[in-house]
């Protein structure tokens, strides 16, 4: 297979296949995804120690560049960077709609002048992290913390880690993603990861107005009736219903949505008795999930948060590692040429 400009991997991977940016799961193979999960397992163990810190990124500067508000994702990225011993700068930038392109470039130039080693980027526009990775100084790693409707790869990977912890693997698993698939970058990354890791069945359950066109082409089946969709499930992933979508006439009412697509104890009873319940948070109790389910024995929602730190540590350490290894390789080559 030849690399082309449309493939994200000429950007994401070094010549020998190591991660150097983490922008999307597209094009990343099962082996690399499994490496990320395995590395995260080791970081989970670090999180259980008296001193929850390792020296990997000591002396390096990580900038959390959030053009879109986020509490959980930003704080887990911050904690992850700190547990890797990096210095962390948090920047919340409210974009004005008129000057996005230009202000992004200028912001980056300024931050690069501060000798940053890594940017963790969240942006409302799909492709922003990709754009930054293309223009950034060599040696600086870019991590996508969610871009538009495109991708949220660390969220998907922490979900995969949670599934693997509870189910042992992916083979033969029946997984459903329920709710607003249309606006969800999380769902897109999850479907991609589940397919690559070999899940048995991936269902999306949603009303037609909240499904992207050709959603099946992502590698999943569609179910409009949640009662049918819940049957025999091993994993159910609920998505947050963004209230602003109500105003766009995509949904009749919260109450109606809850009746049809909310995860209640009755609906959960239709799934496999060991089915785990996941949610990327923040949860809207009584809108997409019943409190008794969110707090119930099958819920692994808080495990997801803990795993989020470990996954982000893994991705940051691997991407920084790829960057430094590549830089060293280039220096070696230059030296050899100089000697020749």
């Amino acid at each position: 297979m030849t690399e082309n400009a449309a493939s994200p991997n000429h950007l994401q991977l070094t010549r020998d296949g190591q991660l150097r940016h983490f922008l999307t799961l597209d094009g990343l193979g099962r082996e690399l995804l499994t490496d990320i999960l395995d590395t995260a397992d080791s970081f989970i163990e670090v999180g259980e120690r008296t001193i929850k810190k390792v020296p990997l990124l000591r002396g390096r500067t990580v900038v959390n560049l959030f053009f879109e508000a986020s509490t959980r994702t930003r704080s887990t990225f911050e904690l992850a960077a700190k547990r890797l011993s990096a210095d962390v700068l948090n920047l919340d930038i409210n974009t004005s709609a008129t000057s996005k392109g230009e202000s992004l470039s200028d912001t980056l130039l300024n931050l690069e002048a501060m000798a940053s080693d890594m940017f963790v980027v969240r942006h409302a526009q799909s492709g922003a992290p990709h754009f930054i990775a293309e223009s950034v100084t060599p040696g600086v790693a870019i991590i996508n913390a969610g871009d538009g409707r495109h991708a949220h790869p660390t969220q998907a990977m922490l979900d995969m880690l949670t599934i693997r912890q509870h189910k042992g693997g992916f083979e033969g698993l029946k997984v459903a993603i329920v709710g607003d698939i249309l606006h969800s970058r999380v769902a897109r990354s999850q479907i991609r990861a589940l397919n690559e890791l070999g899940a048995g069945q991936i269902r999306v359950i949603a009303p037609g107005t909240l499904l992207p066109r050709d959603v099946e082409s992502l590698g999943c089946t569609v179910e409009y009736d949640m009662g049918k969709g819940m049957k025999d499930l091993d994993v159910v992933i609920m998505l947050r219903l963004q209230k602003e979508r109500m105003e766009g006439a995509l949904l009749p009412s919260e109450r109606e949505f809850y009746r049809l697509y909310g995860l209640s104890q009755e609906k959960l009873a239709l799934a496999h008795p060991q089915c785990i319940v996941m949610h990327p948070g923040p949860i809207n109790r009584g809108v997409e999930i019943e409190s008794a389910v969110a707090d119930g024995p099958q819920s692994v929602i808080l495990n997801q948060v803990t795993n989020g730190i470990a996954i982000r540590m893994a991705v940051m350490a691997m991407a920084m590692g790829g960057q430094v290894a590549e830089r060293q390789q280039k220096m070696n080559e230059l030296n050899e040429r100089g000697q020749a």
Partner: protein
Amino acid sequence: MSTLLDVEQLLDTLETGMRRLIEERGIESPLVIGIRTGGVWVADILGKRLGIEEPFGELDISFYRDDFSRIGLNPRVTPSSLPFDTEGRNIILVDDVIMSGRTIRAAMNEIFDYGRPARIILAALIDLGARELPIRPDVAGQSLELNAGQRVKLRGPDPLRIEFQEAGH
């Protein structure tokens, strides 16, 4: 050349040396921690021979290596496992081969992130010299000088054997 070193003999020397050290220094109820991969195999055997009943610990020092800036992260890192509280305890740190001393430095940094041990003593099956740091084993199975380009590796776990390699392969 692989018949040059008898693993059993080295283990005997290591055990005898360690028993003497434990007695001389009056080291009470020591714990054993091995460094992956070879050090863990040796730690397992040494712990049993010394009659230590607590399970041995396993360290993966990948997150503590000092060459991250040159080679990046080891892709095959596995979780460290210390199934005991190290605070205030006497620890026998075990590796298969000691050379530069950098692995031991990394391992000691990692151990201290679990708590403050009373003492760490170092056991190595083979001591190759060529130290780059002021670290030395308290007990070694065998000291050895290699020719330029020669390497030595412990293979295992069952049976354990010592393998010599010449440069290039």
